[in-house]
């Protein structure tokens, strides 16, 4: 039996503040928790939390881990280690790899590899892979959802490429509903999006860069919500970036459509003004929008319209991001800074409560997937993160576990860094500062 004890932590979960106390972890589960329960307990490892915040490990329903085939950008080992360093215990990986994860064998391979990474505490979050909706992300023929689910896929999505064909989307939702699978959508109308590399607006016109209008996102969100209404399938709208798309979602939620939605750390903190630098690090899909949109997304978060925060961690090589804005790929790495970024910019700024933020990274994504809400309670899996809310530290991309060692927030001083992440009771991440 392995035992780990955490002494004197501030305990918080989706049910609220649980006061200060100790947690005893045995064989990957919480064996005891409360004031003084850890005193004198013999353990393989004792962590002095010193009043830091202990909470269930975070859940990310949206990360690009690039394996198989794009290991130059990221692989399971680096991506899942980065996730653990970001405080995430569970990650849903996207299927837009090479080859695309569209066959059960590929799903099973990912699950087996990720399980192997966790043996011996090598520092990796749990992987729950998504599988693609269409073969090869070509948007023509459905994949075999039942077989993919049996192999371990928890979500169906062509994320990275919008499903242009409405009939295909409908069929996908009909199958997904029957199987109880969540369909996640990358909702942008391809023809309206065109060759846009940034938000269409005053800034794109001034910079002479092809724009991608919010209408491209809003009309596709509307279609996807209608299909959810039509079929009854659980549709999760990924990375909502603008006011108009969010208003469409609010409309359909009010109608009772089975729709949930996600926002990302970057769409909550950056605007299209960042493109004035002409730095392709800021090129993402959907694009960074205006300050008005950011304000609206934050308001939607406060009003409970947003179900989850997903990172859309999308690593690329530095060389790919040192191309011109037209050629550089979409996406930025953020899984290691998401929590401190949002804690600093939203919670410390007084825009969002701390427990509200945690809810969007724990209970929220669990509810989207129909998983049990993660709780600090006896018998629960010991997927835990200890967070230092006081220590202020600059974002240092060169320290990332991710292979993508660059960041839009490089040099920015943030608070709320993960101190220790446990997965199945094993230490998956420990801040260098935590090692005495």
């Amino acid at each position: 039996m392995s035992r780990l004890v955490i002494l004197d932590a501030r305990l918080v979960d989706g049910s609220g503040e649980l006061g200060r106390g100790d947690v005893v972890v045995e064989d990957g589960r919480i064996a005891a928790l409360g004031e003084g329960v850890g005193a004198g307990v013999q353990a393989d490892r004792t962590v002095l939390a010193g009043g830091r915040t202990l909470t269930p490990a975070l859940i990310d329903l949206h990360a690009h881990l690039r394996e198989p085939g794009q290991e130059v950008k990221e692989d399971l080992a680096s991506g899942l280690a980065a996730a653990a360093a970001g405080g995430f215990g569970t990650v849903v990986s996207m299927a837009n790899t090479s080859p695309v994860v569209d066959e059960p064998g590929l799903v099973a391979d990912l699950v087996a590899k990720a399980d192997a990474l966790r043996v011996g505490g090598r520092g990796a979050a749990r992987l729950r892979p998504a599988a693609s909706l269409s073969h090869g992300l070509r948007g023509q023929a459905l994949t075999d959802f039942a077989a993919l689910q049996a192999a371990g896929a928890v979500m169906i999505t062509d994320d990275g490429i919008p499903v242009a064909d409405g009939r295909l989307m409908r069929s996908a939702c009909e199958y997904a509903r029957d199987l109880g699978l969540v369909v996640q959508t990358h909702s942008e109308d391809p023809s309206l999006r065109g060759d846009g590399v940034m938000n269409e607006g005053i800034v794109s016109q001034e910079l002479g860069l092809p724009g991608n209008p919010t209408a491209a996102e809003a009309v596709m969100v509307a279609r996807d919500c209608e299909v959810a209404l039509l079929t009854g399938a659980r549709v999760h709208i990924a990375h909502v970036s603008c006011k108009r798309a969010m208003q469409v979602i609010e409309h359909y939620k009010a109608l009772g459509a089975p729709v949930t939605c996600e926002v990302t750390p970057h769409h909550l903190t950056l605007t299209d003004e960042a493109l004035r630098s002409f730095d392709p690090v800021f090129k993402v899909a959907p694009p960074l929008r205006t300050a008005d949109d950011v304000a609206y997304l934050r308001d939607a978060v406060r009003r409970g319209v947003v179900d989850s925060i997903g990172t859309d961690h999308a690593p690329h090589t530095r060389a790919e991001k040192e191309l011109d804005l037209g050629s550089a790929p979409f996406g930025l790495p953020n899984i290691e800074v998401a929590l401190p970024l949002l804690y600093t910019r939203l919670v410390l700024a007084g825009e969002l409560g701390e427990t509200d933020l945690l809810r969007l990274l724990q209970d929220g994504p669990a509810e989207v997937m129909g998983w049990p809400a993660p709780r600090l309670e006896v018998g629960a899996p010991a997927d835990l993160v200890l967070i230092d809310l006081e220590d202020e530290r600059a974002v240092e991309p060169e320290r990332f576990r991710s292979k993508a060692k660059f960041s839009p927030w490089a040099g920015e001083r943030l608070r709320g860094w993960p101190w220790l992440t446990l997965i199945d009771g094993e230490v998956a991440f420990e801040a260098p500062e935590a090692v005495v």
Partner: protein
Amino acid sequence: MATVQIEVPTSARERKRNLLDFADWTADEIGALFDTADVMAQVLTRTIKKVPALQGFTVGTLFFEDSTRTRLSFERAARAQSADVISFASGGSSLSKGESLKDTLRTIDQMQADLYVVRHACAGVPHQIARWTEASVVNAGDGRRSHPTQALLDAYTFRGRFPGFDGFAGKRLAIVGDVMHSRVARSNVELWRKLGGEVVLCGPPPLLPPDVAPGVARTHRLEEALEGAHAVMALRLQRERMASPLLPSATEYVARYQVTETALELAHPDALVMHPGPLNRDIEIASEVADGPRSVIEAQVAAGVPIRMAVLYTLLVGKR
């Protein structure tokens, strides 16, 4: 070689490092550049059309997008001042060759050029390159964004050719055509307004969206744009846009937006007609207008070398 000294205005000697757009250039600095171009134009009328002003400097032309005319004009401008010229030309993205733009630049930078002339199909590349090198950078056209030497030679031509020219204040430039995709339009708007002139933009709705150049007059009616204009610039309409989701047909465009003699009757009596080239004759501009007495299209082309000489001189001299 003729060792003829050239006289340049003192204000032009306050060296600026780059010409990426006009954001950090003042109207006075641009005026001094025009005065320098006058001197350069005079040099080009001499028997020996060469001065040693940039001897020992190396100018690198980095053309990631084809443009023989602009490249030749810059190379002539460099050589007429005795600079050495190195040329790099590459179509498409450098990623297709497995190399990032930054790595490409690093390699070229080993040649120790003092100034790069950069043309790229994507906006912002000259700005990126300026961050990665110590050399000066001149934007020779980046995507839809900016083509500052074209705007300079347009304004310079107007300054030299408009009868009784007494400054840009109160002078109206009408730009007609595919404004949305045009770096020439964006640069001219920026420069003309900086010099104190007025601009009115005109084109079909899909090619002149509302958020182009906020604060600049705009109309979808050619007659409104041309009324009282002192200069009329027709923009090239690229063939692939003529029948596309953007426009119904070339016929429709010609009927509503072609700059014709009849339409020009509404303009100022001395109005000049300009075109950045290359021309689609009888599409955006009637042949009789392009070849007519108001046309200064050839003068624009002729202004290219002296303006670019002045830009290179202004950015390089005083550097060592």
